[in-house]
């Protein structure tokens, strides 16, 4: 497969299970095998107990908005035709409150509010190598997703 996407697994393979999880429609995050602490972003070591024995577990992709931003300026060529778009930082109660970023796919003209419940949507754009985890507010439809 060829791609120009500037994302995907890191050269050292550390976060490959995350990307492979997306291919299978799952959100997978790191968890320390020793002390059970959830870890994100990807690390080789557990910051809590300093074990190098880190596993990957599947997490239910539901959470709440921790913060958000609406981008209007084309900082990235890859997203220039999507402007404006809203990126949310989602706090995951099923992963010890770890937070992950993602683009909001529902009606983004309506501001999210911190605390809004959101649910993950796995989006695999045609021709793209890697699917991406997007989010929509619970109770909304995915109308507007193709904005």
């Amino acid at each position, binding site marked *: 497969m060829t791609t120009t996407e500037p994302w995907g697994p890191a050269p050292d393979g550390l976060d490959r299970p995350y990307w492979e999880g997306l291919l299978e429609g799952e959100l997978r995050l790191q968890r320390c095998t020793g002390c059970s602490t959830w870890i994100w972003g990807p690390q080789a070591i557990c910051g809590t107990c300093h074990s190098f024995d880190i596993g990957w577990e599947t997490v239910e992709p539901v959470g709440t908005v921790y913060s958000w931003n609406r981008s209007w300026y084309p*900082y990235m060529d890859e997203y220039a035709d999507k402007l404006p778009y809203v990126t949310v930082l989602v706090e995951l109660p099923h992963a010890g409150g770890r937070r*992950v970023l993602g683009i909001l796919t529902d009606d983004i003209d309506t501001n999210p509010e911190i605390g809004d419940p959101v649910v993950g949507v796995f989006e695999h754009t045609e021709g793209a190598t890697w699917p991406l985890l997007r989010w929509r507010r619970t109770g909304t439809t995915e109308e507007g997703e193709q904005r």
Partner: protein
Amino acid sequence: MSAGNMRGAAAVVGVAEQHYRRGEAPHSEKRMTLEVILEACVDAGINPREIDGFVSYAGGPNDGAIIGGALLIDELRWSNMMWGGGGGSVAAAITNAAAAIATGQAECVVVYRAMSQEDTGRLGYAKYHYGSHFLAHGIGSPAQICAMRTQRMLEHGGVPRSAMRALVLAAYQHAQNNPTAQGYGRPLDEDTYEKSRLIAEPFHLFDCSRESDGAVALVLVSAERAKTLRPDPAYLLAGAQGAPGGFSELIDNDLGEQYMSAGFGPANNGKPGVAQRLWAGAGLGPDDVDVVQVYENFSGPAVAALIDHGLCPPGEAAGTFMTVENLTAPGGKLPINTSGGNLADSFVNGLNLAVEAVRQIRGTSTNPVANAKTSLFIGGPMAPLVSSVLFGHEDTL
């Protein structure tokens, strides 16, 4: 050895800056660096061959051997690049120079930074600095990352957006008295600010720093030497750098509510943090500060930095304190960014703010704060490493 042992050991005795509209530098970064170092030496009244220490930050190829070699200095003793943090480490570079002098590692240290779009492109577009887990979600610039942190400060922290606006309007008001400011002759009113285009919500255009070409240098020597050179050295009362472990470094998984701070606040496990260490080193507190230069990459992080330092109350009260009246010289309670700052004067990665902090001690600012004895410079907020430095007049020693 406590940080207080450095109090008053070193002083800034020479400053120089030059800035141009971005992309319009007449010379390379190296040439501009050499020019401002020579100008700062003239300002200090020292021979450039005496410089034996070189400190910079945020990258750049022109290290102490290269610049010292070009100047054919007597001896190179200290050549340090601050690690990480971009503009966050700007004040740390000054502290680094003072540490070299205080410990006898070097005697005459120059802190410098040069930026030319021709040589290194634009800072705000350094997008591939960010990894996959940002880029995949449309986040590829410091503006967007700081915007999300600011949004939480506003929405969850309860800081009114008017606090950001007051900081911006105060900077532009100051710039109207500074003929070399890029915002000189271009006053900004509330309506224009509010109606300016959105960049990365909640930031409008005027919430974002400009970028300039240019170069800045500050020359530091020991307090003893400083007294022989000029009547108004800016003594380094204290400097501190760092951040809580993991701050702004774990893909937005900062501990607790650190996410909406600027990184100067309390550290992990009860450790003090940058601001508290700064005050402890100086033996002073926020109420003792006469004038502040705060690095505004964006308005929101600058407000967060003032809150972290205890200069501005958190939450809704920030809106009461952060008014144009309070923030402007000569009569404001806490004049900030008195040259116009990164927003309205120029942006050479923030080191130009340190020059203005020194001018306030000398009384040579175009917006002087009468009888200023303490002058605070806060480096780039919300970076993974942040720093601040407090200058004092001789009377504060």
